[in-house]
């Protein structure tokens, strides 16, 4: 009642007022949980139906590659001449090849090779490509110059030529393909990372951070790496299908894995030889490799859109 009296008297004192809504501490409060760059990209990727379907297909293929060969009692090298060229049946789910080997087991064994190549390509990109590019850009000067000469030579030679020469020198097989990829697989990534870091080094926020006293370590860990991450992931996702293709391609022309080992390239070559009468031998491995390649490419496209909205068209 005292308040009303005061009002009637026309006196206005501080205790008449109270804060209605806006408070200093509230206006600065973070309302939503902070979104890391990763979460933000994931939200964007989730909206891309094609990418999610691709991801599911790839996970399914991965599961089948891991467990597929154990789902029946046949081994991929097990021949049975009395059961050669069996069409798909309940006994042999995807039929048998010219030696009576179970095609289901062989296809998933071959898929394992493709997935191994995928992991290897990604790993090499990260380990050699990123390091090489980053070192070259960060040190700069003469070291950069020398490192770039090496890259120029490697870029000048078609990859396939290097791989074929190496395969001639060594026995064709998974080890040779691995070494060939160690030599050729990382060059693109190294160039991209170097260019990106060079660009970043010149930018104002790096200068600002440096003038605020950041150490080199902090600059690299907190500014350069996070800003290069998107590029690295995108490029890695495009390297993977091309590595899978290269292995299958070499195996198809007989320079990759050799019988009785199964790679999708070997299986497709077998299927191609016998497609006139036994089309299923060509069809199923073809479906699997196309599935893998298409999924990786669509997922890579989706990731590019999610990680780098500027590139969205």
């Amino acid at each position, binding site marked *: 009642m005292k308040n009303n009296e005061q009002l009637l008297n026309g006196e206005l004192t501080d205790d008449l007022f109270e804060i209605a809504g806006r408070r200093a501490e509230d206006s600065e409060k973070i309302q939503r949980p902070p979104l890391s760059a990763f979460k933000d990209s994931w939200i964007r990727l989730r909206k891309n139906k094609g990418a999610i379907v691709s991801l599911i297909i790839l996970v399914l293929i991965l599961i089948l590659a891991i467990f597929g060969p154990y789902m029946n009692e046949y081994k991929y090298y097990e021949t049975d001449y009395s059961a050669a060229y069996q069409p798909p049946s309940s006994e042999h789910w995807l039929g048998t090849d010219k030696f009576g080997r179970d095609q289901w087991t062989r296809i998933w064994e071959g898929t394992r090779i493709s997935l191994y190549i995928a992991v290897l390509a990604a790993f090499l990109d990260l380990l050699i490509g990123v390091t090489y590019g980053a070192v070259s850009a960060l040190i700069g000067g003469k070291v950069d110059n020398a490192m770039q000469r090496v890259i*120029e*030579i490697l870029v*000048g*030679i*078609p990859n*396939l*030529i290097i791989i*074929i*020469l190496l395969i*001639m*020198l060594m026995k064709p097989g998974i080890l040779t393909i691995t070494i060939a990829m160690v030599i050729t697989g990382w060059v693109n990534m190294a160039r991209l990372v170097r260019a990106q870091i060079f660009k970043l080094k010149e930018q104002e926020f790096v200068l600002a951070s440096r003038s605020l006293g950041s150490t080199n370590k902090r600059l690299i860990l907190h500014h350069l790496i996070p800003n290069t991450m998107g590029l690295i992931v995108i490029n890695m996702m495009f390297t993977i*299908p091309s590595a899978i*293709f290269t292995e*299958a*391609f070499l195996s*198809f*022309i*007989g*320079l990759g894995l050799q019988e009785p080992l199964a790679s999708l*390239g070997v299986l*497709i070559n077998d*299927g*191609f030889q016998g*497609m*006139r009468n036994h*089309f299923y031998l*060509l069809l199923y491995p*073809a479906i699997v*490799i*196309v599935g893998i*390649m*298409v999924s*990786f*490419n*669509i997922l890579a*496209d989706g990731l590019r859109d999610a990680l780098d909205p500027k590139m969205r*068209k």
Partner: protein
Amino acid sequence: MKKYFIIRVINILITLFIIATATFFLMKQLPGSPFDEEKLSNLSEEQRMEFYARYGLDKPLSQQYVLYMKNLVQGDLGESFYFKGQDVSTLIKNRIGPSALLGVQAVLLGFTIGIILGIVAAFRHNTMWDFSAMIVAVLGVSIPNFVFAALLQYYVGLKLGILPVAFWESYSSSIMPTIALSLMVIALIARFTRNEMLEVLQQDYMLTAKAKGVPPFKIIYKHAIRNALIPVITILGPIVVSLLTGSLVIENIFGVPGIGSLFVDSIKVNDYTTIMGLTLFYSAFFVLTMLIIDLLYGVIDPRIRISGAKE
């Protein structure tokens, strides 16, 4: 520009020299020989020496290398180990025709269909047209060329039986390999054209052209397509690579007597000189194309020319 050109040419020569040297020493390290070892051991010592001398294999390695390089500069790639009495250069010359025909046809077909798909997709942005064109583009990039070629041969060659299978007889034999080879080109060009067109369509000069009453067809032809296609050079590199790799496997599948199938066959029979010759041939072709692409790039896009001059 001139300085840049000279540096590039020197780089190319160094690259080719390294490839030639590496190939030579690799071949010398190789296990296996192109000769029939059994028959060779039946010969007397003298006969065998004579045999080696014929291929220059009796001299020390360093002399063989110098001789090889000397011949190479004169364009002599040596005599094939497998096709007796034939020069590798002649072999390549005889078999380059079909490969070149396929390559040129694939590029023409790929550009035509790719550009049409890209334009349709851009003008009908976010419709079924756009959607279908981009499915074609993704499939074209993803499907391995040998899988596509094998399926094409099965469905069109065997099932429909309208085109010849695995024989190089008449012009119709080149149709299927051309289609198989052009798949990647179509995909790359279609996606590229679409993206560039979408960019160009938003430019102010398109609005200006429309405002001053230029007929729609002319806008598309004169302003949109021309400007959208200038940067096409940026994807010529991947296209060349896809044609080179494609030629190896597609010529084999369709039985085309070109250099791609020659390469694969010579690897299978350890025909060292032919492998060396073709390796060099492919490499030289590759680096020269890349040089031309880079030069074109500078000529067409003035921004690159200026930034190049500054450096």
